[in-house]
């Protein structure tokens, strides 16, 4: 008996208006028609729309990203793959990347953040690596904005739910508040994985006739045009975009992780790529593109979640927890057996073809027949106009000297250490499993997290950093300082910086002032990376972070991985023993320009920020690593937001419970000494004998070094300026976030 042939519904007609509805400009539509020599079909147009979206094509950013240093003796894979890969010796490599999930997390914070974590985890394990750590950098609006509590709670529970279930520890990250994120929070998630160098897998299709296999969850209607949504501004209708946010299933992803790693032990996988943004479209096109082959897909073989889905929906669905792989012909059943063992869908959905075309069939009809190139390198490249933002000079000219102190030093320190950006993040990271995998040597709360690598003496130091206020005042300098701060944080636990990933969050690139910020920030990142010998190996750009025309502070987040050769030499931030001497490496006086002090006490952003001396940063890092290696340094903590007084309070609170007495007279205004900020400064503790050695070493290296005082008692006292009990500081520090989340 033959089933009655039901003709597939005809695809809608395509024109400029339909293209605009999918996010393509009339010029881009014309370019598509020109490149393929005809009018595209409806599904074909949808594929162009997502492949050419800002999110997938980097069309506004690529001309600038090309300037990054991306190579180095340890770099095995730089940008362009699913994640960057850096060798750490012993035949092992570290795979890492940071990615944004800003727009989805604003529309639906829990699922948006959860699927952001799920996506970046897949990017890492698709390369053969087992994920060993997660980090995240979160930016929210003003603490008292009516949506902040809801968004923060949802994002934190979403990040936690996914990583916790996957059994990947979330070991570090950042959290900041600023009114510019009121309508556009940022969720940047980073995953770090470990892979034997000879077992690295790439997202490439090779071998004509090899089967293309689909693994994981079924395809549903969720997330269609998610990548396009993430490439537009928010407006009144944003709430209606909720259906473009995917729903995560970390349990299925955990199975997918284990099944993929097991399947990768065989020699049956030729290439593999996760289905993230733009789903089946992006994975198919990118695998064909990298392998210089064609791919034939039969949509009738794709496992579907619901009946009646049309090719357009299947090709654009962003259903989570799916992978596409190319297998060695003849070994399909071997792979299917492994995925079935893990109770996962696995089916052959196509094959690698000769030539350069992606052909998609549905119910016997060819619905897509496109050359690969126009979809990928054919995407438009925009060198968009740039102009320095108006009013920037007025911000620089802010008269800091005229601002009053706003209270006694003790009052100001208490105010700062409990303020939204400086208070303890315990409420956040206690919701993240940070000890699973039993590798966490330094968890959240310090300068950088440290995870050891079992079977070796090595450990990795991980951090994410950026101070968007500095970037707003001077994008080039602020971005360079983000790299410098990350390198300092990594050095504070004894690690040498290996490489960075970046997540560049900016406003609407069609506005010249935003594009100017972007270009300047990329230049600054590149300058610092070159000076510090740290290549950029992966990254992500998130533009259009605007709501009703108002952009965020430019936020180029830097995720850095550092290496500790011998985990016995790992450092820490907190003071350890009574009687130890406290030293400051770097300049004593900071600047109030762009500082937390200026933000908290005066609600202002302005001034000329001090410049980073990158050569000195390098020397500082070497001195810290040497100090840990030869046992002269007991603790080291970066002096960042909040300045020296806040850094000293943190050294006490993160330590063994001892306080400190400081003797240092102000050379200039007291606020600049206590709360001023500047790069290149680290608070160190050491025994008295070792402190003398350190002073000599610093002098030899040309680094300013001065004795600040002693570790002792249960107060933090700055002679002549303030005296506060650690109990008071701890209460205020721990209570700051609770006041915002209402816990």
């Amino acid at each position, binding site marked *: 008996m033959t089933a009655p042939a039901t003709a597939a519904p005809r695809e809608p007609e395509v024109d400029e208006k339909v293209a605009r509805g999918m996010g393509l400009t009339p010029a881009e539509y014309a370019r598509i028609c020109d490149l393929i020599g005809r009018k595209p079909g409806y599904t074909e147009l949808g594929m162009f729309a997502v492949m050419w979206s800002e999110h997938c094509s980097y069309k506004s950013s690529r001309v600038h990203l090309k300037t990054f240093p991306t190579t180095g003796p340890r770099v095995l894979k730089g940008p362009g793959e699913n994640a960057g890969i850096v060798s750490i010796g012993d035949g092992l490599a570290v795979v890492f990347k940071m990615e944004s999930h800003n727009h989805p997390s604003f529309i639906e914070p829990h699922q948006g953040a959860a699927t952001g974590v799920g996506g970046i985890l897949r990017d890492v394990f698709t390369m053969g690596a087992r994920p060993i750590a997660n980090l995240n950098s979160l930016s929210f609006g003003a603490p008292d904005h009516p949506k902040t509590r809801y968004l923060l709670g949802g994002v934190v529970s979403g990040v936690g739910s996914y990583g916790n279930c996957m059994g990947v520890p979330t070991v570090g990250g950042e959290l900041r508040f600023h009114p510019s994120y009121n309508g556009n929070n940022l969720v940047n998630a980073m995953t770090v994985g470990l892979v034997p160098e000879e077992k690295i897998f790439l997202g490439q299709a090779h071998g004509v006739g090899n089967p293309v296999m689909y693994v994981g969850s079924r395809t549903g209607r969720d997330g269609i045009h998610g990548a396009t949504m993430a490439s537009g501004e928010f407006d009144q209708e944003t709430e209606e975009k909720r259906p473009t946010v995917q729903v995560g299933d970390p*349990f299925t992803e955990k199975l997918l992780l284990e099944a993929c790693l097991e399947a990768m032990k065989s020699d049956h996988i030729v290439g593999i790529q996760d289905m993230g943004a733009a789903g089946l479209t992006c994975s198919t096109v990118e695998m064909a593109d990298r392998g210089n082959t064609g791919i034939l897909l039969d949509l009738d073989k794709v496992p579907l979640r619901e009946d009646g889905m049309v090719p357009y929906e299947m090709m654009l669905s962003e259903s989570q927890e799916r992978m596409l792989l190319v297998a060695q012909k003849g070994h399909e059943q071997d792979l299917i057996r492994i995925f079935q063992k893990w109770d996962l869908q696995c089916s052959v959905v196509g094959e690698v073809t000769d030539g350069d075309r992606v052909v998609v069939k549905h119910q016997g009809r060819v619905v897509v027949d496109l050359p690969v190139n126009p979809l990928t390198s054919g995407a438009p490249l925009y060198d968009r106009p740039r102009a320095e933002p108006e009013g920037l000079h007025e911000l620089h000219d802010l008269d800091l000297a005229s601002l009053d102190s706003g209270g006694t030093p003790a009052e100001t320190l208490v105010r700062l250490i409990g303020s939204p950006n400086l208070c303890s993040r315990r409420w956040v990271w206690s919701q993240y499993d940070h*000890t699973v995998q039993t590798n966490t040597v330094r968890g959240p709360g310090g300068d950088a997290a440290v995870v050891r690598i079992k079977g070796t003496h090595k450990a990795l130091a991980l951090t994410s950093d950026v101070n968007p206020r500095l970037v707003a005042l001077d994008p080039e300098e602020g971005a360079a300082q983000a790299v410098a701060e990350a390198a300092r944080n990594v050095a504070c636990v004894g690690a040498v910086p290996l490489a960075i990933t970046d997540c560049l969050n900016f406003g609407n690139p069609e506005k010249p002032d935003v594009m100017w910020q972007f270009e300047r920030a990329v230049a600054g990142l590149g300058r610092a990376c070159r000076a510090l010998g740290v290549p950029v190996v992966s990254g992500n750009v998130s533009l259009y972070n605007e709501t009703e025309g108002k952009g965020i502070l430019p936020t180029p987040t830097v995720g850095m991985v550092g290496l500790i050769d011998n985990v016995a030499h790992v450092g820490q931030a907190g003071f350890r023993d009574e009687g130890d001497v406290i030293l400051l490496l770097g300049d004593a006086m900071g600047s109030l320009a762009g500082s937390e002090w200026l933000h908290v006490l005066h609600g202002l952003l302005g001034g000329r920020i001090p410049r980073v001396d990158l050569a000195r940063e390098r020397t500082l890092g070497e001195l810290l690593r040497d100090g840990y290696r030869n046992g002269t340094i007991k603790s080291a903590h970066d002096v960042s937001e909040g300045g020296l007084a806040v850094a000293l309070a943190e050294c006490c609170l993160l330590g063994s419970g001892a306080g400190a007495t400081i003797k240092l007279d102000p050379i200039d205004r007291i606020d600049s000494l206590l709360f001023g900020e500047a790069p290149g400064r680290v608070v160190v503790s050491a025994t008295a004998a070792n402190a003398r050695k350190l002073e000599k070493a610093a002098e030899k290296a040309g680094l300013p070094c001065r004795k600040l005082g002693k570790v002792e008692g249960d107060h933090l006292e700055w002679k002549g300026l303030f005296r506060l009990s650690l109990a008071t500081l701890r209460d205020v520090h721990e209570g700051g976030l609770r006041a915002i989340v209402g816990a």
Partner: protein
Amino acid sequence: MKVGIVVFPGSNCDHDCYYAAAHAAGAHPVFLWHKDHELKNVDAIIVPGGFSYGDYLRSGAMARFSPIMEEVVAFANRGGMVLGVCNGFQILTESGLLPGVLMRNKNLKFLCCDVHVRSELEPSATPFTKKIDKGRVLRMPIAHNDGCYYADAETLDRLEGEGQIAFRYVSAAGAISESGNPNGSLRSIAGVRNEKGNVLGLMPHPERCAEDLLGNQDGALLIQGFSS
């Protein structure tokens, strides 16, 4: 000593238990797959933590029906040593090997932090506690959504009376207090044993604190119960 570590879909502390059993206890660990009925002649079993079957229904509720659990229950009933940690503890209560249930934490959030627990048993009461004096306070990490121990008053009285409460949440100094009880567990219960003492379940993770490098070796005392 051959130690079997059960692997459910969604287990995520299986490798950690494997590592701790080998390194902290010098045991010979093997994995036991949830679809199998084969116990591989193990001398003891660990049911590890994680999110078995995603814990979408109720923590541990699905895992108890898996083929391997039939064998684990039979093994325990024959007197075999079984340790359940976190999700493993939840599975052991669901499968009836241990009394009580684990409910959502009192703050309704996942909670990962160090806690202090006090041993309530004479060392001889279970093979796992033979290196731990009664009253000794151990520091261990927790990481769970559903760790609030619950049983009816009658059951709790019986557990008290028969010495089945193995660990209670306490302050660092060893005192029972509201603030020392992280998840709202009734009578601050962090772990219980069965009547015979061959089955023990607890929410804190001994396998995560069994090494000096991780800053805490208190958990090794429990794991080492397997070594002799």
